[in-house]
């Protein structure tokens, strides 16, 4: 598209709507998805700069007002004094704030008294490593009490766009510590009536300070929210439960602190063909009854319509020559958020009509849209099922070449790791040449959208002669990192029927993609303990709150070269009261930045009480993670204390993250 013909407003509208209807917009979507991780300011420097700025502010404020008030020294002195009083009050002994802190031995709390406004707690005062006090926001409100939302952010979860990362900063200022607090999502219309039972819980913490703020960070499964709440625009909700020395809940309140979120994920809707009758390859001679089963996934809207069309396989690239989609291949199907299957029944038109409107071959095309009521359709996704084709019988005309998948193994949504056996049965019709080659490739699911950028990797080829037939391919996936590097983590399979001229010139005759297949390349190991040595020393019973603190952490190497494994050792202390559970699992996770899936580096069981744990785990970045850690990367390290109830529900009771885990630098051998 040249800039002269370019309608920037229309293009901008599509960009803002998250559309991917042209190569530039598609690339924009990829850039959003692969956004590099932020690089925070070093904490020391950040704190120092903050103090310096606020000091300057006070000086400027005083000086500025002195000028404004015509050099009134008295007024200036009052102002400076007022600023100093505020600072002194904030920096003073922490009677006001420290009194709310349960642990009087928290060194961060004591040290915070020397800072003008930036109090920071971590770990010990509450059961979350991300708890910190922000006096400024609450002091601004003077005597205001209650909960306040300071920041709210949401975005697709890295590595799995079906999840939404919700991050929020919530502050409280209450007469008493809120104790057990659950942060979750609730239906916007039910409000406080929803209660804890009507909430999708994101995080739970025991908070022992009357004033503070909570950094909430959770990956939300919109499907769970949809199923539980019936909305994808929930409110952020807070449930606080006051407990009285193990006697149970004394009081419960629910506060709502945000406008509705939106958990839709643009650009990740999918349609795939499950089955079609008559079998692909059978010629259509006119009025033929069809039954087509289609799978769908809708994640960008609560409801949508799916329409099926009969089209020529190249209908999009042909303009004005009669290759038009035939509407009304079955009824319009209304679908709701989630995944499911649809069945379309229809009868094809007369042969002459098919030949005139479609051409010599027919395939199926489906699209998913919203906005039908307003008369303007908003396309969510469109899919050509070119893996299923039917020749349209033309007396005396040459039959078209065809290729299609009959069987693909493993199952469509399986994980395919290095060494996984792959099997295919492929049907074909070769009429335009005496001999040809059928090749099978792994392919990016949306490879058709990459103009001139074929994201495919070859698997196997076989020679075929003219005529109809069926081939069986069996192979084993090798060089997984190579496939991942070219295609990504999701792959489908593609068959190509090609031939070579007498001069040896390659000619691609027909291509078919098995849309149903969406393999995950490489193992994902979320939540599966791998390698760990754990040494637990139980020190005493714990009667207080759940806690988990990281005392020490070391990595064997911060610059692992080649294939060397990395060993990490962490020393932690925990407190697990009997009322919470008799045992809990202590897990360590390494999560590569931007890669999504985590390695469950390992863990073990700890008993109720207080204890000290030495956790040692190792992993081989190249072997275990393939391309994910092939280069210099950032990563997060998280330690979690989880309990499991009788129903099998896992609850994270405490977690701790080192502020700055050592970087891993890995270079390919």
């Amino acid at each position, binding site marked *: 598209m040249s*800039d002269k013909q370019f309608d*920037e*407003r229309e*293009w901008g509208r599509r*960009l*803002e709507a998250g559309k991917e209807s042209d*190569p*530039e917009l598609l*690339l*924009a979507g*990829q*850039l959003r998805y*692969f*956004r*590099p991780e*932020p*690089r*925070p*300011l*070093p904490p020391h*420097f*950040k704190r120092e*700069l*903050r103090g*310096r*700025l*606020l000091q300057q*502010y*006070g000086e*400027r404020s005083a000086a*500025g007002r002195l000028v404004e008030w015509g050099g009134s020294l008295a007024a200036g002195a009052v102002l400076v004094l007022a600023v100093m009083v*505020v600072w002194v009050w904030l920096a003073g002994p922490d009677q006001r704030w420290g009194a709310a802190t349960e642990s009087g031995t928290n060194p961060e709390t004591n040290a915070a008294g020397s800072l003008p*406004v*930036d109090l920071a707690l971590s770990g010990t005062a509450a059961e979350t490593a991300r708890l910190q006090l*922000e*006096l400024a*926001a609450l*002091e*601004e409100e003077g005597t205001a009490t209650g909960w306040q939302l300071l*920041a*709210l952010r949401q*975005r697709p979860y890295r590595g799995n766009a079906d999840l939404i990362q919700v991050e929020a900063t919530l502050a409280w200022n209450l007469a008493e510590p809120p104790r057990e607090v659950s942060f979750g999502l609730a239906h916007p219309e039910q409000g406080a009536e929803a209660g804890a039972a009507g909430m999708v819980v994101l995080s739970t913490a025991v908070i022992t300070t009357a004033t503070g703020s909570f950094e909430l960070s959770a990956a939300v499964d919109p499907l769970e929210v949809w199923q539980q709440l019936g909305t994808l625009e929930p409110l952020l909700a807070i449930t606080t439960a006051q407990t009285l020395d193990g006697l149970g809940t004394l009081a419960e309140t629910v506060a709502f602190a945000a*406008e509705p979120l939106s958990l839709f994920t643009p650009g990740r809707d999918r349609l795939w063909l499950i089955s079609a009758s008559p079998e692909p390859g059978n010629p259509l001679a006119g009025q033929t009854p069809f039954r087509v089963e289609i799978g769908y996934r809708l994640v960008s809207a609560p409801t949508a319509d799916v329409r099926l069309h009969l089209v020529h396989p190249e209908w999009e690239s042909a303009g004005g020559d009669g290759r038009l989609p035939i509407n009304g291949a079955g009824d319009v199907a209304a679908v709701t958020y989630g995944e499911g299957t649809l069945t379309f029944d229809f009868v094809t038109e007369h042969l002459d009509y098919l030949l005139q409107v479609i051409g010599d071959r027919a395939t199926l095309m489906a699209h998913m849209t919203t906005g039908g009521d307003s008369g303007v359709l908003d396309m969510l996704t469109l899919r050509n099922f070119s893996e299923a084709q039917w020749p349209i019988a033309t007396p005396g005309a040459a039959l078209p070449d065809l290729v299609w998948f009959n069987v693909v193994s493993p199952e469509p949504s399986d994980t395919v790791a290095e060494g996984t056996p792959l099997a295919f049965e492929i049907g074909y019709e070769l009429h335009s040449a005496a001999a040809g080659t059928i090749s099978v*490739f792994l392919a990016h699911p949306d490879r058709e959208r990459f*103009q001139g*950028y*074929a*994201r*495919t990797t*070859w698997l196997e080829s076989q020679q075929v002669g003219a005529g109809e037939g069926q081939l069986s391919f069996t192979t084993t996936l090798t060089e997984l990192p190579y496939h991942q*590097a*070219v295609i990504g983590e999701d792959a489908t399979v593609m068959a190509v029927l*090609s031939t070579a001229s007498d001069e040896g010139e*390659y*000619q*691609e005759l027909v291509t078919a993609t098995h849309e149903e297949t969406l393999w995950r390349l490489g193992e994902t190991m979320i939540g599966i303990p791998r390698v760990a040595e754990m040494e637990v020393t139980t020190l005493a019973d714990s009667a207080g709150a759940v806690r988990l603190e990281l005392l020490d952490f070391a990595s064997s190497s911060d610059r692992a070269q080649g294939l060397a494994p990395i060993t990490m050792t962490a020393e932690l202390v925990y407190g697990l009261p009997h009322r919470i559970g008799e045992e809990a699992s202590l897990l360590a996770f390494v999560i590569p930045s931007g890669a999504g899936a985590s390695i469950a580096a390992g863990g073990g069981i700890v008993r109720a009480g207080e204890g000290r744990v030495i956790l040692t785990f190792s992993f081989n970045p190249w072997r275990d993670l393939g391309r994910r850690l092939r*280069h*210099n990367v950032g990563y997060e390290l998280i330690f979690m204390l989880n309990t499991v109830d009788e129903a099998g529900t896992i609850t994270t009771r405490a977690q701790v993250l080192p502020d700055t885990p050592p970087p891993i630098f890995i*270079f*390919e051998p």
Partner: protein
Amino acid sequence: MLENEEEALVKRAQQDPQAFGVLYDRYADRIYTFVWRQTTDEALAKDVTATTFEKALRHVRRYRWQGNSFCAWLYRIARNEIVQHYRRQRFLAPLRSWLLSDANVEKAVQNQERQDALQKALARLPAPDREVIVLRFFEELSSAEVAEILGCSTANVYVRLHRALGRLRREMEVGASGEFASVRVGE
């Protein structure tokens, strides 16, 4: 953050150091990330971040809310500081790639060779193209905020983005044609 909430906070920050502290807490990391990506120099990024907030502090009383976020204003200050720095240093070459993750040039070059196709292609873009892409997609700023930072209209941002993305796509195709030649049918 809601716009009216931020507007109210900025107004408070014009009279109250604590409110300015809240703004600093919210945006310091973002500004530092942005500067670091543009310069790949930690010390310089710290200096520019500090200068940005010092200037913001100096001028916050004169700041007038015009519908765009306070953050966009900070980005604009930071961007000007980066440009000024390179002018002072008489750097004639375009800014170094934000991709380089190591101040050590030799290592950085090694690392850059190992970046994936997208990052490689981004690195080959002219600085203005890369800047508009980084601001819009990596810094997650709205198009209106990017317009505010670059001093142009939103429509012009779309034109620049479209052009930059087109160039990026072509760079990726150029990079991909050699890399994938061995796996394409018949090649």
